[in-house]
């Protein structure tokens, strides 16, 4: 009797790892003739999930991510803007995600919010030189964001799943550190994009132990 609630809780818990790529960019105010374009980057992380019932799962999914943008400038005598700079923003992220399974339990939609702590930010030119200029002091000390997405999971063996997901993410607060700037003149710039992930999900206890 004493162990029963513990085993039940464990049976409702699962853990896993996931990783993938994101296509992110900055969006918002830009100087004249300057454009933000998508830049591919990567993510890797783990998660701990709790099954509220057979349709709703709540998960804590800390992960490392690098986001960023390409910056293009319009140049005289050129038809298209020219890619000139890549901005990279590294974060450690702590999202809480709710997954809702469809009736067949294979597909699910997800949504949630998270906070992210910036680690290192820099820009470099796209001309091939690897010189990196640190801009960490220009980036806001915290990022808050929302995610919405769709996923599909496949049972592989012994109640373990692999899954694939695609998520839209959007930061809620300005990426640029406020500093001493008057808010009326502070540019509004945020990160947003699409995150594509695959992962492995396994229960913390075996199927047989779920029914003590």
């Amino acid at each position, binding site marked *: 009797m004493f162990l029963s609630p513990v085993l039940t809780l464990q049976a409702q818990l699962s853990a896993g790892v996931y990783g993938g790529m994101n296509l992110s960019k900055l969006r918002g105010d830009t100087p004249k003739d300057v454009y933000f374009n998508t830049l591919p980057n990567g993510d890797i992380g783990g998660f701990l999930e709790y099954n509220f019932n057979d349709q709703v799962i709540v998960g804590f999914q800390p992960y490392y991510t690098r986001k960023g943008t390409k910056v293009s400038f319009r140049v005289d005598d050129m038809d298209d803007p020219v890619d000139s700079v890549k901005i990279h923003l590294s974060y450690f992220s702590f999202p809480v995600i709710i997954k809702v399974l*469809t009736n067949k339990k294979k597909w699910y939609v997800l949504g949630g919010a998270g906070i992210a702590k910036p680690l290192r930010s820099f820009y470099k030119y796209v001309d091939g030189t690897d010189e990196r200029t640190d801009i960490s002091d220009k980036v806001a000390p915290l990022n808050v964001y929302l995610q919405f997405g769709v996923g599909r999971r496949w049972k592989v063996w012994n109640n373990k799943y692999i899954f694939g997901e695609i998520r839209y993410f959007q930061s809620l607060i300005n990426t640029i550190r406020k500093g001493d700037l008057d808010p009326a003149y502070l540019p*509004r710039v945020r990160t947003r994009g699409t995150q594509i992930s695959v992962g492995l999900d396994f229960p913390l206890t075996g199927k047989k132990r779920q029914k003590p």
Partner: protein
Amino acid sequence: MKKALTLILWLGMILSVSAQLDTSRNIYRKPMLGGHAFHMNDQAKSPFIKTYLAGSIGMGNTGTMYFSGYIVGDKVILDFSGQLMFFNAGLEYQQRVNDWLAIYFNYGLVGRVGSDVSTILVDGLNSLSGGSIGWLIRLYHNDRFQLSGTLYLQNLSGSFVDIVGYINDLLDSVPNPEITKNIPVMNGGVGLKGAWAASQTIGVLFETDFLYGESFVRGVNSFFTGISLSGDVDFNPRYQVPVGLNFGYAFSSRPENTLLEFDHTNIFHLRIGYTGSSDFDVGLQFSFYRYELTNIEERRPWVKNTSLGFRLYF
């Protein structure tokens, strides 16, 4: 190329979900309570957990307005009489996930243009574009009533051209005056949507929305709200006439309705639609609302807007 790849991936996932989710083959796909099939107006968010695609396109105009202009020396400039025209277009897709949850995306464009150059010169040209992504969650339902909640994120981008404002700024020696302003804003919102079927013929729809986030004035956050109530009459079940009416009132301080910051408007609408199909609606909507103008003496002229909308259920 990357945008195309992202779009293809999203579409692929959504269509796959769609293919698996909508396994129930209801003959009548339109939302129905107590024998009444609901026909929503073009701006309303459906409270029903259904998969559908909806769209609308419309135009409107004010009556003739007068602007007395500016006196420069012994001449009067920019005096005119003319109309302002408005346009709007929107598209929404909602995907049912299970009995109590749906996800949706929408995108819209709304703008104000002058019917001639002088109108544009005097009151500028505003346009807003953007959309939202969110969840629709069924909170309560019975045979005749359904209540759902929404949780969403809205991204808008506003473009404002204000020539008179620019001239005034120059005259007032405002630092860094601008003719054109492009301002991105983002808001988070929650809402309640409800539907009640009084009979097979008559239904009632209501919704409330509360948004908080950035305004189109930099450095200022704002709270926006929208409340609407509409009646819905379907003549098909009782009189075998496939015509439906939706008429109602809405109060809104949302910038996509006012095209101006820190303002509100009262909107009256009448929609006449075809109700003979089991899986789609199409209708013509007439809306009337008053509109705040910044530079014209007639401060709140009436705007008459006509739009064509459809909603296709899967």
